[in-house]
């Protein structure tokens, strides 16, 4: 069962060849055994998970339920789940037990999925390595001295190590796709507005979007079928008819136009990543796709624009952590202002403070126009580049990350170097486009390489189709790290 994908497990449950209680026990057992090696989870609660599994089994026995019923799903510890400690990997929320369910959690509950645990991550989703966690770094299942990527590193590592068939994540600048690439799993960030942000702890609200990790594209379609949908409690949730994201999986790729941005294939990408990505492009051509060179002339400005906009929004969003209504409060203080200052100094980690300071600065008097408004204008230029490019192609393909996973500790002392790890993933967030990463080979130290697939607005079904057809022709997504195989 360890090697089975979400789709295969769903079939096995429906045919009563396995029970949800069995799958849940197996997942809990693997999570416990991998704890020291990976540190992928912050909280597990076997009693709660098993209670959900028993009701899922009852539901299946009544002949009810659908694809996710009885499936163990790991959730990034950024989604509030009622009665579950929800920490966002921060000391600030170390004792925070959520009083309500995030929309995403509610959708999985309604689908009968089992909440198997809350995964480790970069504090408040700020990071590209999952090293910025109050609970210690997550480790890459392919090699324990390397990072799993971030910020959703625990979810990516859990799926890669076959602890769970699928997991949720959030993606503000690459936090699903970059760890998916670095851990050798599939991950998708839908079009902004498709997944409700209600109960998803806010980092940069105009960019944050929930999404999913699984072994393969087919499974991601099932996840999106559960996660997406209009929610009036999120003011940016889009009121659109419900889609079946699996509907185009079997469509042949003949005639597909794949855009290759010339800016992505110049300098900056490591040779091992380039070789794997070019191999994937050749495989897409062999499946009948045509490649066209496109240009995203402003793509070089994505990282600078992001590091104005995301910190600016973060500084406003994280102002709520004041030690008054919930979360950490400093034990000693002189007055109210001192209580705020000490609470925030002690409750936040270094990277979170750094981004709050940057955000506060760029929004402060005299700098707002030069930084914030200019970044918002550049954001529109970047979005327009994509709109123009998509008149020539159906999907855009390139590397997810310029390198394979780097060593734990390698980039912690140099924030700018760390930020450049997201050089290819940030632009779709700025534009609000859907994007995904699928495994496409291995590079240095036997570490995985990810292929980045970007779609037009609401182009998820087509992207998943491309990824699924690619995965039918290749087996990179079936490779498991030796230490966690079978």
């Amino acid at each position, binding site marked *: 069962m360890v090697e089975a994908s979400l789709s295969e497990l769903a079939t096995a449950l429906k045919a009563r060849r396995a029970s949800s209680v069995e799958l849940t026990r197996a997942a809990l057992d693997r999570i416990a055994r991998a704890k020291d090696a990976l540190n992928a989870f912050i909280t597990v609660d076997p009693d709660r998970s098993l209670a959900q599994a028993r009701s899922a089994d009852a539901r299946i026995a009544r002949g009810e339920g659908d694809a996710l019923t009885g499936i163990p799903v790991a959730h990034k510890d950024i989604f509030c789940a009622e009665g579950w400690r929800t920490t966002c990997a921060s000391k600030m929320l170390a004792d*925070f*037990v959520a*009083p309500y369910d995030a929309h995403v959690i509610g959708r999985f509950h309604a689908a009968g999925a089992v909440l198997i645990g809350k995964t480790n991550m970069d504090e408040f989703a700020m990071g590209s390595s999952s090293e910025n966690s109050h609970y210690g770094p997550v480790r890459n299942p392919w090699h324990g001295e390397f990072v799993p990527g971030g910020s959703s590193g625990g979810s990516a590592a859990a799926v890669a190590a076959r602890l769970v068939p699928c997991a949720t994540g959030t993606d503000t600048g690459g936090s699903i796709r970059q760890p998916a690439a670095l851990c050798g799993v599939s991950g998708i960030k839908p*079009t*902004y*507005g498709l997944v409700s942000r209600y109960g998803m702890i806010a980092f940069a609200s*105009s*960019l944050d979007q929930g999404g999913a990790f699984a072994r393969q594209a087919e499974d991601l379609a099932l996840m999106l079928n559960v996660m997406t949908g209009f929610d*009036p409690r999120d*003011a*940016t949730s*889009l009121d659109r008819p419900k889609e079946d994201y699996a509907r185009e999986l079997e469509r042949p790729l003949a005639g597909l136009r794949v855009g290759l941005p010339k800016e992505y294939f110049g300098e900056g990408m490591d040779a091992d990543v380039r070789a794997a990505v070019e191999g994937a492009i050749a495989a897409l051509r062999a499946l009948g796709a045509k490649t066209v060179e496109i240009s995203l002339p*402003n793509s*070089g*400005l994505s990282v*600078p624009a992001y*590091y*104005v906009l995301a910190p600016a929004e973060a500084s406003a969003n994280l*102002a709520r952590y*004041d*030690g*008054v*209504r*919930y*979360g*950490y*409060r400093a034990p000693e203080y*002189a*007055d*109210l202002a*001192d209580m705020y*200052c000490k609470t*925030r*100094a002690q409750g*936040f980690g270094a990277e979170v*403070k*750094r981004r709050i*300071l*940057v955000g*506060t*600065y*760029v929004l*402060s008097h005299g700098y707002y126009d*030069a*930084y914030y*408004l*200019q*970044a*918002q*204008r*550049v*954001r*529109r*230029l970047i979005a327009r580049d994509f709109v123009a490019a998509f008149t020539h192609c159906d999907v855009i393909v390139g590397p997810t990350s310029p390198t394979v996973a780097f060593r734990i500790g390698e980039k912690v002392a140099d*924030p*700018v170097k760390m*930020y450049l790890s997201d050089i290819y993933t940030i632009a779709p967030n700025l*534009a*609000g486009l859907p994007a995904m990463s699928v495994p496409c080979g291995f590079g240095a130290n036997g570490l995985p390489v990810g292929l980045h697939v970007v779609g037009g*607005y609401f182009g998820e079904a087509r992207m998943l189709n491309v990824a699924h057809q690619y995965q039918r022709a290749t087996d990179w997504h079936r490779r498991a790290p030796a230490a966690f195989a079978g």
Partner: protein
Amino acid sequence: MPLNLDDIRRVAHLARIEVTDAELRAAQHELNGILGLVEQLQAADTTGVEPMAHAQDVTLRLRADEVTESDERARFQSIAPRVEAGLYLVPKVIE
């Protein structure tokens, strides 16, 4: 123009984050590095370009001005650092 220590102190005060002298110096170095990266934006010609505040150009919905939530005060205050008689307790602000 690189930030000096007084700039960092001012920003930290605005953000309500206490910083030690050692942290101030580290923050100065890191923030100047980040702002150096961000400086590239100044070279972009954005004349006549409307700022883009959101990923989708949609107008935020308004909802009817109706009470939809029930009273959850006791439950929400059960996770507060300090409460008394249904009120959140903070240090005295007015003498």
